[in-house]
């Protein structure tokens, strides 16, 4: 079903334009006038969004479009650059440009008055460019390039307030941890390239493509191009997964995301909740055919573990953005786990719905932070305006923020009528269905995911109650400006079921899910009823419990002193462990190697130099004293002999006579006696 008729060539140009407009925005704003205002980037983004929409309508559920141009030649191989428009990429395109546009509009008010605002717009433009490029490119190499560019723009935006020590630290940490993932990604690319000799995603991963048609014979992984031991197949899958782990902030490379909250909230919302972090899941989707059972198992375990871990951490955090950050990690864990169990479509569906409601959560939180920050500056107070323990009762002053945040919280909790209900149910049900076919730890997967979803309900309820309910503590906080509130309302509308499915209770009627074919699992009809029912009933109970616990505002649910509390509050001590294990040991290693360089290698060089010097000293001494000494010795002997014989010629007659006589006598003695 094609909703819009466009020729392939037009599509190609249009998608290029959709990618190029944000880049234009980046270049012009960065090199243009310093205070050019938000009009230009927003215009660019709108154009990009409209183009994305038309491309989406033309390509969704139609035959994929895959135009290419020659990029460069190396040896006998021609490397092509091109774009691949299929359901996955056009959906992501729409998502990225749409949410970017909303965040741009939101930022007009949110970032107002910042001295470097033009840079902010430029960086956002760069981010949109790289993200759009990432989703539509058709080559692994280009994908990797945009992948890193996304990380780079994230670096710029996290460190946007670079005078803040924590911000520049966080930016560095994010980039370096992402680099670890990039190494995995690069390794994956190298394996794929070695095995198949191409970077082309279509040639590689299409059904019947190179990956599909490669086979395993006698534990050798054989393709038409080359062959290698089968262990490299799993390695390739895991290598790509490491890339996804870093970008999607999965265990064990998740620690950068909470720190990344040092950036502006609008950035956190766009990059670290809705779009960039989803790139990891997107990558898993792109290279999905590559994964063998080992990789899939690892993906499942990591996803489940991350989802659970992050949810437990989110329960005790007090910084509003950090709670949401851990929530994001947890939700990404859901998506990754879904990928691992083969629920490809469900995972992408959750990605889509999550993008909207998590973006909204952040933006609403941003609204609260924004107003509190102004309140703080206005009254010249000193307190942490992101600490939920200090908030409370804001529902009266900021009803819109309260409402929209509640909607998104409900979506996150997966309550009925929200988009989150659809996608989370889809996920949980497919995990239960999948687990039916297995034994052992795999049986546990759906239960842990369900438990995690209850934890989710708890921490998000805690957040809402602590921030908006209870006694009001601040007087004179007003509602947010219109640019921000419009965006909140639009996103709240997108968090309801209607955007995704006509039927609020059936995820299977959702158009997103239908756009992707999942691996077929045996369908268990009864689960489609029992799982959502049980999950939601318990969720509501949890909300009530949370309400009872936190209504007063002062009460604490857990003792501060318990080990579990501290374990959770310190985020399972990952940062401490990493600092101890990797950061400081790397530092020590580098110092060691520097010492080695100076003392041993350079020392050796200097030692050789000194030995040479010594040797030359010895040779100098030898030359001076022995060689030259001999010469001088001969000369001195001659001189001395001359001096001695001079003694005889002293002009005294009698001495001459004595000499003569003694010579004659000597001669006489020699002749006659010897």
């Amino acid at each position, binding site marked *: 079903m094609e909703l819009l008729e466009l020729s392939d060539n037009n599509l190609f140009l249009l998608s290029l334009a959709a990618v190029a407009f944000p880049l234009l925005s980046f270049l012009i704003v960065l090199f243009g006038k310093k205070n050019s205002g938000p009009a230009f980037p927003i215009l660019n983004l709108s154009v990009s969004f409209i183009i994305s929409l038309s491309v989406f309508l033309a390509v969704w559920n139609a035959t994929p479009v895959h135009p290419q141009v020659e*990029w460069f030649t190396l040896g006998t191989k021609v490397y092509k650059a091109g774009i691949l428009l299929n359901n996955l990429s056009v959906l992501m395109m729409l998502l990225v440009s749409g949410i970017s546009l909303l965040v741009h509009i939101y930022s007009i008010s949110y970032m107002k008055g910042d001295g470097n605002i033009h840079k902010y717009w430029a960086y956002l433009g760069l981010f949109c460019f790289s993200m759009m490029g990432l989703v539509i490119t058709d080559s692994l190499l280009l994908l990797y390039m945009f992948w890193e560019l996304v990380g780079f723009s994230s670096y710029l935006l996290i460190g946007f307030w670079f005078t803040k020590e924590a911000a520049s630290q966080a930016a560095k940490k994010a980039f370096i941890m992402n680099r670890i993932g990039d190494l995995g990604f690069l390794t994956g690319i190298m394996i794929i390239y070695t095995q198949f000799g191409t970077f082309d995603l279509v040639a590689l991963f299409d059904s019947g493509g190179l990956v599909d048609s490669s086979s395993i014979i006698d534990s050798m992984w054989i393709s038409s191009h080359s062959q290698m031991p089968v262990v490299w197949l799993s390695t390739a899958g895991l290598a790509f997964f490491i890339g996804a782990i870093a970008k999607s902030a999965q265990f064990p490379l998740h620690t950068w995301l909470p720190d990344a909250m040092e950036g502006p909230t609008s950035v956190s919302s766009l990059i670290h909740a809705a779009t960039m972090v989803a790139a990891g899941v997107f990558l898993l989707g792109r290279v999905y055919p590559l994964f063998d059972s080992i990789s899939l198992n690892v993906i499942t375990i990591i996803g489940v573990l991350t989802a659970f871990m992050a949810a437990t951490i989110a329960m005790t955090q007090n910084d509003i953005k950090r709670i949401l950050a851990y929530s994001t990690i947890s939700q990404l864990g859901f998506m990754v786990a879904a990928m691992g169990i083969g629920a490809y479509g469900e995972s992408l569906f959750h990605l889509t719905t999550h993008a909207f409601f998590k973006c909204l959560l952040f933006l609403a939180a941003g609204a609260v932070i924004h107003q509190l920050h102004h309140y703080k500056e206005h009254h010249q107070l000193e307190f942490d305006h992101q600490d939920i323990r200090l908030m409370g009762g804001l529902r009266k002053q900021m009803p819109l923020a309260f409402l929209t945040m509640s909607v998104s919280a409900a979506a996150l909790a997966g309550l009925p009528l929200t988009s989150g209900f659809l996608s989370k149910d889809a996920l949980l049900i497919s995990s239960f269905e999948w687990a039916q076919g297995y034994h052992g730890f795999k049986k546990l997967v759906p239960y842990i995911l369900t438990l995690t979803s209850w934890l989710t309900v708890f921490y998000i309820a805690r957040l809402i109650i602590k921030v908006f309910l209870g006694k009001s503590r601040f007087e004179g906080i007003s509602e947010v400006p219109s640019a921000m509130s419009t965006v909140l309302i639009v996103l709240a509308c997108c968090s309801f079921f209607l955007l995704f499915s006509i039927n609020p209770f059936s995820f299977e009627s959702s158009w997103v899910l239908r756009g992707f074919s999942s691996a077929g699992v045996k369908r268990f009809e009864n689960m489609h009823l029992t799982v959502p029912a049980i999950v939601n009933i318990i969720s509501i109970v949890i909300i009530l419990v949370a309400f009872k616990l936190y209504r007063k505002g002062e009460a604490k649910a857990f003792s501060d002193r318990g080990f579990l509390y501290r374990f959770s509050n310190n985020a399972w001590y990952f940062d401490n462990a990493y600092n101890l294990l990797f950061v400081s040991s790397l530092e020590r290693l580098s110092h060691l190697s520097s010492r080695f*360089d100076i003392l041993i290698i350079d020392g050796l060089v200097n030692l050789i130099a000194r030995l040479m010097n010594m040797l030359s000293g010895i040779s100098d001494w030898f030359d001076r004293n022995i060689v030259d000494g001999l010469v001088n010795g001969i000369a001195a002997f001659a001189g001395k002999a001359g001096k001695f014989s001079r003694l005889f010629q002293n002009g005294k007659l009698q001495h001459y006579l004595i000499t003569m006589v003694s010579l004659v006598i000597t001669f006489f003695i020699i002749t006659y006696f010897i």
Partner: protein
Amino acid sequence: MNNILSILIFLPLIAALAIILMPSGFKERFKYIALGTSVVQFFITIVIYINFNTSAAFAGINIESQFQLIEKVSWIRLDLGSIGKLEIDYFLGIDGMSMPFLMLSALVMFVATLASWEIKTNLKAFFALLLLLNTAVMGVFCSLDFFLFYIFYELMLLPLYFLIGMWGGVRREYAAIKFFLYTLFGSVFMLLIIIGLYFSVLNPATGNHTFNMILMMDPGNYLGSSIFSTVANQNVLGISARLLAFIVLFIAFAIKVPIVPFHTWLPDAHVEAPTPVSIILAGLLLKVGGYGILRVCYSIFPDAAIQSAWWIGLIGVISIIYGALNALAQTDLKRLIAYSSVSHMGFVILGIASGTTEGVSGAMLQMISHGGLSAMLFFLVGMLYNRVHDREIANFRGLALVMPQFTAFVMIAFFASLGLPGFSAFMAEAFSLIGAFTSQDVNGLLPRWMAIGGSVGILLSAAYFLWTLQRMFFGITRLKGGDEWLSRLKDVSVREKFALVPLAVLALALGIFPSLIFNKMNASVLAFIEMISG
């Protein structure tokens, strides 16, 4: 224009003579003469670049007729009686392996000349030596006669010694001597090999012994009983003579590259050298090493090169990781960049060792890319040093607030160097690593773990560059020199932009359109691969 290469080489020499002959009253003009020379050279190289024939029939490498812009004049013919006739030619020519370096040389010389504005003493000698160095570098990249090559190769040392020793920092004499002896150590043994080669190779056309490098590449030209003959397989000290010769030549060039453990001259020379000399050292001299390995070691002794590929690859990986680790520990910005050069040149070695099209192309691109980027980095450090005479990382903080444009350039240079996609270093490093990885399947030279080990260097380079960025440029401004420094830290001037912008553009252009270089050298790389594997 069939003597365009000679013009390219000797133009700076003429300019140097002109400077020497001019009265000292003109000393303010010297830099403009030098600058003009490099600009003219740059235009010449652009003309060469545009007219360069990229077809396989002009691949060069080991077929004399396939070289372009050949100039061959009999130079020295000396009858040596029973040994034969000495045959040394003035023999120039370029192929896809050398042409990119000509452009790079002209560009780096241009930047180095712009950086020479900071030199205040003894201008006449400085610019004359700089131009002499220019001649030598151009000559190395063009010569096809080993004797001529060696002359230019040694000629580079002389001006560099004086440039470091006279205009350098506090420990300049130590650094200059160290640099000189280190490099001379390599090249002295090289001379032995050259002589050995001379007596092994006969010019089939004239029947004389010859220094012609291209004739040396053909095993058929070797005398059957000669020391380097492939047939006779002679041994010296229990090792095959060809292998030994390869190792000696490799070490001679590898000292220039430099590889661990022959790298310690580099940090000292860089730190003590004045900015323009640092730029030339990092931008060109290191490339002479890489070029020599390709043009001489691999081309003349391909069999020995294949034999020792594993070790060369290992050296590459060690250089990458070791250089990066050391860079992480440095407290002096210039030293940090010097060590990062060691790390980045490791990719060149690794790529060459792989013996694959991807690897060698990546290595070539890495040399070009690193030539531009290291010139940029050293220029930037020079700017900072010139303003406040300090380079300690810990003495600066929050420079982004004081010098925003400077910070922007530093960020471009840093991110380009750490291999951000879109910049040339990424393409180069990625293809070096891909080449190393595919090597096991294509020719079985390098194991796969080397590529993965090398990629750790990419991670470490991100660590040391970003850490430096965070420490020096971000945060609240706090300078050791206080307000005095603040007043001296002016942002980028127009002259400096003239130097920095072309380098940034080069990095960006090659990153997005690597075909700008790849296309020009592709035929040569293919011929090269065929030669070493065949």
